[in-house]
């Protein structure tokens, strides 16, 4: 069975859905953050597959810029989580509902 573009479509959709499930299921803020990284990577995989399909180099550069933004996002996000842990001594997102009250 040869590999077509739809195989990559299904694979990255599956990875994206697993990321969504993880973000909804878990209460640990760091795990949720990791699930977001997983979703970003599934989109990157799909972009590279389409770049291969259409022989277009711009998609691969777009993946490069997504990686740049993800790296910056991880730096700031982990700083926020560490700051939060220093304040409340937990990374449980159920404790962080002060904006609700």
């Amino acid at each position, binding site marked *: 069975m040869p590999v077509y573009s739809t195989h990559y479509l*299904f694979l990255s959709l599956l990875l994206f859905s697993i990321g969504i499930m993880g973000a909804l299921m878990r*209460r640990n803020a*760091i795990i949720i953050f990791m699930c977001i990284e997983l979703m970003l990577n599934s989109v990157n995989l799909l972009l590279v597959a389409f770049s291969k399909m259409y022989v277009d180099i711009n998609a691969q550069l777009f993946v490069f810029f997504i990686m740049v933004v993800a*790296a910056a996002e991880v730096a700031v996000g982990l700083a926020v989580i*560490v700051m939060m842990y220093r304040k409340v001594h937990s990374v449980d997102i159920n404790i962080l509902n002060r904006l609700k009250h």
Partner: protein
Amino acid sequence: MNLYDTLFWFFSAVAVGCALGVILSRNPVNSVLFLVGTFLAISGHYFIMNAQFLAIVNIVVYTGAIMVLFLFVIMLMNLNADVEPQKGQLIQVAGVISGGVLFLVLIAAIHKASPMPIDKQSIDIGLINNLGKVLFKEYVLPFEISSVLFLSAMIGAVVIGKKEPALPAEGEAQ
């Protein structure tokens, strides 16, 4: 079944299995290691699609830098399976159902897409030579702006992570 297809199924199985391990394992350190496995499998996909530069960057940046940063933070906080907060059974089932429904909706949206063959002839598109030419000719401005983004992210991380000076009133209250 040629080498390309075999490798595709192998890397796909590893990626999906490790992704399930990320969301199912109780210990956060195991989650990080499973995510490293997923990223390595995705890098393998990049390799078989002749996107060599992106494969190397994915390994170096994601598994080498970002996941090690995650691992440092988890070990700094001394998180393990005992202190791991768990959602109730109902919420977990609801999360799985809503994720699965999203998957079904997206599948229903794309299942009629005509399968196009992956072009295996163009092997030089992902080489750093060609990518660099396009990056520094057409995408010079976004490239420079991303350096400003990194600078602001670095300053932001330092400002957020800085220890606040203890207020005297707060110290007396405690």
